[in-house]
Every structure is written in structure tokens, then in C-alpha cells.
């Protein structure tokens, strides 16, 4: 006898879900698998090897790009986190104020404007005011588009903290600064950390904007990968891509776990 399905189950929906998962994960998994293939072949498996990773790490071009990427990501994510924390304190605390909606839109503006538009607008601006394109312009651009990503978990965390903790601190003779420093800030820390992680990978991953506002000689990892793909596929690309995948997954998971942690 056929087992009766629950009413809420539709035939075919589970198959589509698996198709969806396959679509989302198959390409990156395939690339990861090939990055360990000892030989260049697409059709045959030549045994497990880390040779392509070694080759990638030895490539001075990639080394330089990695250093640039890290410098940019660390600086921009830190700056964006500080900015976003301050903004969250202003927006999530105290009563509503005039212009609140406007500030909110401003914070999320980098998410609303298509990346390519942001990219050319910044390029125009930097050249118009006479900025030398290079590491500095890349860092500024990254800081700007990292702000909304850092803001999200910080504001979420902050709005979950009742105002009576700050009241209690002030009641116990802490002035406003110390009630922030010793009570609110430690309680916000998981959100701030989560925001920092997200900003970090968003900066690490950016291609379109970096591509526009960078100057000659300043390459980041995505730019390096793009350049290599343009020339032709090599297993080296698979190796670097796999590492970047793992870095992203690691930081997202970390951000997710820390951000959800209850104090």
C-alpha cells in the first residue's frame, strides 16, 4: 500500500530542492576536487596532490596580491566596523529623531547602488579630486561598501540589549563613557565581532569596485585570479579559488556562531 504523504508535501519539490543545492554547490566542489588532481587532465584522476597549492604559493605575483588583499581587508573592515558601531549606537539607542530614515538609507546606500555604478562613480571622483589611484583609494572604497555589512549584526545585537543595563551602570556611579566602556561595549562585542568578520570577507572578495579604483601595480587576489582566467585556466586557479572558498566559509561560520551566541 502506498504510504500517504502529509498534506503539505508537494510531489517534485524535494527533487527541485536537491537540484537547487546541486546548482549552488556542484561548481565550487568540482573546482575544489580538481585542485587536488596531480595532473592537468580534466578527464582523468592522477592521484591526490598539493602540487598546485605549492605552485600557487610560490608565485610572487600571487604572494603580492595576497598581501595587498589582507592589508586592504584588515584596514577596511576595521574602519568599517568602527564606523558602523558608532552609527548603530546613534540609531538604535535613544528615541527616534528627525532624519533617522535618511541616515538609515545612507548606511545601506552601498547595498542599493549597483556595484558597477559605485565603481565608476568612485573612479570619477578620485580622479576629479586628484587622488592617486592605488592602495589608499582601494581601502577607502572598501571601507565604504563594508559599512552596511558590519552594521547589520552590530545593530541586531544592540537592539537585543535592553536599555536597563546602561541605566543600572549609571545608577552604580558609572558616567556615560564608563557605562559604555564597561557594560554596553562588552555586551555588544559578539555583534561587533560578527560584523568585523562579514566586512572582512566582503572586502576580501570584492572584484568590480577594486578593479576600477586600483592603480597600476596594486593587485588584490580576485584581480589576480581574474587576470589569470583571462589568460587561460590552470589548476593553480583551482587551488587559489579553493583556499578563498574555505576562508569565506570559515569566516561566515565564525560570524554566524559568534553573532548568535548569547551572553
Amino acid at each position: 500500500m502506498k504510504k500517504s504523504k502529509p498534506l503539505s508535501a508537494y510531489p517534485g519539490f524535494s527533487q527541485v530542492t536537491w537540484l537547487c543545492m546541486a546548482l549552488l554547490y556542484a561548481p565550487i566542489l568540482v573546482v575544489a576536487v580538481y585542485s587536488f588532481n596531480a595532473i592537468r587532465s580534466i578527464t582523468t584522476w592522477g592521484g591526490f596532490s598539493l602540487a598546485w597549492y605549492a605552485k600557487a604559493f610560490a608565485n610572487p605575483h600571487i604572494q603580492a596580491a595576497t598581501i595587498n588583499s589582507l592589508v586592504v581587508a584588515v584596514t577596511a573592515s576595521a574602519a568599517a566596523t568602527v564606523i558602523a558601531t558608532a552609527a548603530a549606537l546613534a540609531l538604535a539607542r535613544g528615541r527616534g529623531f528627525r532624519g533617522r530614515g535618511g541616515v538609515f538609507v545612507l548606511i545601506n546606500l552601498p547595498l542599493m547602488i549597483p556595484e558597477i555604478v559605485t565603481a565608476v562613480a568612485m573612479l570619477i571622483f578620485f580622479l576629479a579630486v586628484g587622488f592617486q589611484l592605488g592602495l589608499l583609494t582601494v581601502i577607502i572604497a572598501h571601507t565604504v561598501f563594508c559599512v552596511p555589512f558590519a552594521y547589520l549584526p552590530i545593530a541586531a545585537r544592540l537592539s537585543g540589549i535592553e536599555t536597563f543595563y546602561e541605566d543600572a551602570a549609571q545608577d552604580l556611579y558609572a558616567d556615560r563613557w564608563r557605562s559604555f566602556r564597561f557594560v554596553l561595549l562588552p555586551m555588544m562585542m559578539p555583534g561587533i565581532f560578527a560584523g568585523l568578520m562579514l566586512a572582512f570577507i566582503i572586502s576580501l572578495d570584492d572584484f568590480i569596485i577594486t578593479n576600477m579604483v586600483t592603480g597600476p601595480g596594486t593587485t588584490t587576489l580576485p584581480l589576480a585570479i581574474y587576470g589569470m582566467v583571462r589568460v587561460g585556466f590552470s589548476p593553480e586557479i583551482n587551488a587559489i579559488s579553493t583556499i578563498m572558498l574555505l576562508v569565506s566559509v570559515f569566516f561566515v561560520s565564525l560570524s554566524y556562531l559568534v553573532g548568535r551566541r548569547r551572553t
Partner: protein
Amino acid sequence: MDSEQKNPAVEIRAVSKKFGRGAEQVKALDGVTLTIGDNEFFTLLGPSGCGKTTLLRMIAGFEQPDDGGIFLFGEDIKALPPHKRPVNTVFQHYALFPHMTVAKNVAFSLEMLGRAPAEIERTIGEMLALVKMEQFAARKPAQLSGGQQQRIALARALAPRPRVLLLDEPLSALDLKLRQAMRAELKTMQQQTGITFVFVTHDQEEALTMSDRIAVMSGGRVRQTGAPRDIYEKPRDSFVANFIGESNFLTVTVEKLEQDTAWCRLDGALLQCSCAGEAAGFGEARVSIRPEQISFSAGGNGGPALSGVVEGLTYLGTDTQLSVRLGDGQRLQARVQNAGREQPPPGPGERIRLKMNPGAARLLAD
């Protein structure tokens, strides 16, 4: 009473506070005037939304009055920020800092005040001993039960030895047994430390059992201030009489007024009622009388004494409550203890003679 006159711990003078604008405006406090004596256990009692928390937050410095003044031991503190006022608060939800241990929570104010480490150590010990929580010093608040958190909140607020302790419904989150135990403990603690307690609650039983004096609030106003006994036995108006305990409200005609006694006619009988000096004039008025202040005996037939017909009986365990209809149609509840009664209570339909203890009925101001 004498020391209270000389040295009021807290004085609230004609304080008003509005929240919001336009149609949504709420008058949280409306001309509140109070004097809280030193060493007093003073309770703000009233239904939810009557402005108790607002008043407490104003004393702590979290809200600014729109009008009026707040004085602490004679000093105007309106301009002082919360961290400069020598008062501490036990918050309704405890507000223990979740990222600090119990000891760190208790030490917080002392560190903010820059006390010496040795003194801080000693005070932590003393305070945890006071609330019987010594062995929990290293725990985080999340690892404590509600009752334990309550004790730590108390220890933390007492650590800097405030001159006034503010408590906002500190027992409301506890279950009944714990709540009753904590009542006694709080009272003892107040007497031991000699600190003025300003205690907020919506629970009349809590207020009656713990307080030296009570201020009954409603709609942002203080309805009556007095000792628990006065509040219970001599309610000023129908709100107070209704909010605290059970009461019968009866319409009477005032015939004669003396200083604090009014002679009122009810269904032909003359009733000796107590009244405040300020009470209304002659004519129609309302009195309140507690069910347990009405006794009865069988029989009764008009005449000068009050009588009525039993309409129903409710068995309440220790007491039996009678619902009685008077000759003029007004109804009232009378209550008698079950223990020690020889004859059974009268049955429905029986006519009984009612007796009210002299002065037990209270002439209301409204």
C-alpha cells in the same frame, strides 16, 4: 515622626511628567507631592501604568520632571545626573551585567567610585553574606535562579551603601513561596541597614505587610498616603477602598458631622462613620465598609437597627460570606469566621439583623 519632620530622605514637590506629543500624550505624573522619612520603608502602590516606575526613575535621575522639585535630604538634586546621586536601584528585571561574575557585579559601583581594592574585597564578602550568597561569587548571572539573581541585585545595589534604595517591583518575577520569604527578608534587611527603602509594587498584600507607610497612586496622582492600617481602615476615596482589600460601597445621607466622625443614615438606621476632616458636607454621600466589619444576628424587624434579607452564601474556607439585601434595595457582603461558631449561618431568605462596628464605615471623599 519627629525625625521625619527634621530630615526627610526624599521630598517630591508638585512633580509632573508628560510623555509623548499630541493625541498620544500621557500624563505619567500629575502633581505628585510626597515626603519620605529617613529610615522609612516607604511603598508606592498602584495598578500598572499609574506612574510608579516613572516616579522611581525620577528619583534615580533617569527621568527629568517637567515641573516641580526633587530633594534628597534637603538638597535639590534635579540637576544631578544618575551617577552622582547617592541612591541605588534594584531593577525590575534585575539588570545584572551578564558578562560579569556575581562578585564583579557587586564590585562594580565600588570600582566606579574608586574605592581601595581591599575595601572592595571586604564589601563583596559582606554583601554576599548579607544576602546569603557567598558560595556563588564566581558564577555568572545566567547560572543563577531567579531568586538568586534577585539577591545579587540587592547586594549590588546595597554595596555602595546608598542613603536611599529604590526597588522597582523586585519580587514580581518570583514565584509565590519565594516572594513571601523574600518579603520578610527585605524587611529585616531594611531594619538592619537603616537605609531608606522606596519600594514599588502593584501587590497590595506586599505593601501592607512590609511598609512603614504607603502611598497609593492612580493615574499619575497620589490618592492617599499613610500607614498600612490607615490605608486599609480609613481609605480616603473609593479608588483606595476598592484597590486595597474588599469593600462594600453604600449610599447614605450625612446628617451630622463632628471632627472625624460623621453620622449617616442608611436604610433608616443611623451609622457612626469615620471621616477625614476635609470630608464633604451634608446630604448624599458614599461610605465604604469592609465585609469583616459587619456582624449579624438572627431576627430583626425594621426598627432603628439595620436589617436585611440573606440572598446567598459563599463558603470561603476560613470564612463564610453572606450576600445581604437591605430594605432600600442596596446589597452588601458580610463575612463571618467559621471557626468557633456555634449556630449555623442563616440560610437564604432569612431576615437578619446587621451590626457595623462603630467607625468602621468610612465616609469617602468622592
